[in-house]
C-alpha cells in the first residue's frame, strides 16, 4: 500500500494517545467514513464538540490521512491481517487497531459499493417500456392492418449522467427474435453461475 509522506505522517499521528484519546480517535474515524460515504457530507462532519479542542489544521490533516488510508484499504480489499500489519507499523496500539477494524467492518460494504461504482462503462440499460399499436393506413398505403410494437430502452450513462433513450419499432416476429435472444443470454447466465 503506497501512501504519500504527508498521508503517512498524518496517519501515524493518529496512533499517539497523547494528542488523540480513544474517543477522539473514534470520532475522527467516523467523520472520515462519513465524508467518504455520505453524499450530503461536507466540512461540517468535523464540527463535533469533542473535536473542537484540536487545532483545525491538525484535525484536517489527520482526517484527510485517515480517509486516504481507508480508500486505499478498500480498493485493495484489505483483510484483517493486512490492516493490522500496516497499523502496527504505524505504531498503533492493539486497542486502536481493534477500533479501526470495527469501524472498517461497519462501513466496508458501502465503501466497496462506492468504489465499485466509479469508472467508465458502456451505456447501461435500466428499464424497458413498450407500446403495441395496430397500423391501419399511411398516406402511401391503405389497409395495412398489422400490429407493430414500439420498444423504448431506458439507458444510463455513468459519466455524463445523461439518460438517453433508445427507441425502435418492430413487428411480432422481430420482437420474438429479440426476446428469444435475451432469454438465451439469461439462460447462459444461469448456467455460468452454477459452475
Amino acid at each position: 500500500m503506497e501512501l504519500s509522506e504527508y498521508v503517512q505522517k498524518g496517519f501515524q499521528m493518529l496512533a499517539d494517545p497523547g494528542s488523540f484519546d480513544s474517543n477522539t480517535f473514534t470520532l475522527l474515524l467516523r467523520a472520515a467514513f462519513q465524508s467518504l460515504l455520505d453524499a450530503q457530507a461536507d466540512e461540517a462532519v468535523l464540527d463535533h464538540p469533542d473535536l473542537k479542542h484540536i487545532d483545525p489544521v491538525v484535525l484536517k490533516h489527520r482526517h484527510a490521512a485517515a480517509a486516504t488510508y481507508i480508500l486505499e484499504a478498500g480498493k485493495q480489499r484489505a483483510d484483517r491481517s493486512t490492516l493490522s500489519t500496516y497499523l502496527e507499523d504505524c505504531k498503533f496500539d492493539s486497542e486502536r487497531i481493534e477500533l479501526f477494524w470495527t469501524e472498517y467492518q461497519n462501513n466496508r460494504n458501502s465503501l466497496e459499493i462506492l468504489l465499485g461504482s466509479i469508472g467508465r462503462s458502456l451505456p447501461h440499460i435500466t428499464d424497458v417500456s413498450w407500446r403495441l399499436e395496430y397500423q391501419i393506413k399511411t398516406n402511401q398505403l391503405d389497409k395495412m392492418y398489422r400490429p407493430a410494437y414500439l420498444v423504448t430502452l431506458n439507458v444510463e450513462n455513468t459519466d455524463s449522467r445523461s439518460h438517453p433513450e433508445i427507441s425502435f419499432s418492430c413487428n411480432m416476429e422481430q420482437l420474438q427474435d429479440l426476446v428469444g435472444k435475451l432469454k438465451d443470454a439469461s439462460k447462459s447466465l444461469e448456467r455460468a453461475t452454477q459452475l
Partner: protein
Amino acid sequence: MLLDLSEEHKEHLAFLPKVDSAVVAEFGRIAVEFLRRGSNPKIYEGAARKLSVSSDTVQHGVEGLIYLLTESSKLMISELDFQDSVFILGFPEELNKLLLQLYLDNRKEIRTILSELAPDLPSYHSLEWRLDVQLASRSLRQQIKPSVTIKLHLNQNGDHNTQVLQTDPATLLHLVQQLEQALEEMKTNHCRRVVRNIKNPLGEME
C-alpha cells in the same frame, strides 16, 4: 372502388395497345424493377430505338404503368374493380388480362416497397449478446461483477445503426419478463376483437 385516372395518365397509357403483348410484359417487368431499385433512363433509350418511337413516349408508358400498379396496390383494390378501372381505357381484352395479371402478380411486393416509405422510426434488425465478468477496476480490485453486453442492430431509412449497451443480470430478467408480456398482449381478447372489427368494419362496400 375504382381508380381515378387523370387525362394525362390515360394519354400515357394509350401507348400500350400500340405495341404487342411481349413488349407490354417487358414494360411491366421494367416498371417493377424500377420500383425496386429506382429508374434507369438508359433503358428508355434502348427500348425507344427498338420500337422506333421517342424515348419520352416509352418513359411515359412505363411511368403510367408504374402509377397504375402502385395506386392499385396502395388501395388494394379487388380484381373486379381493377378490371372495371382499366376497361375505361378501351384497351383490347388481351391487354386488360395482361395488366390484371401484372397487378395480381406484383401487388404484394409493391405493397412491401410502399410500406418502407412510411414515417420511419429505427426498426429492429438483430441483436448479439455476450456475458462478461468484471474482475477489477482502477478503483476496486478483486471484483466479481457479471454483466451482459448487447449489440443492438437497428435499421433506419436504409442505414444500419449499431448500439452497444450493457445490463446487469437482474435487469436482463426484467427485460425478458416485460417483453414477454408485450408479446402476450396480442393474444388477449381485447386485441383480437379490435383486429377482427377493423378488418371488417361495418358498412364498408367493396
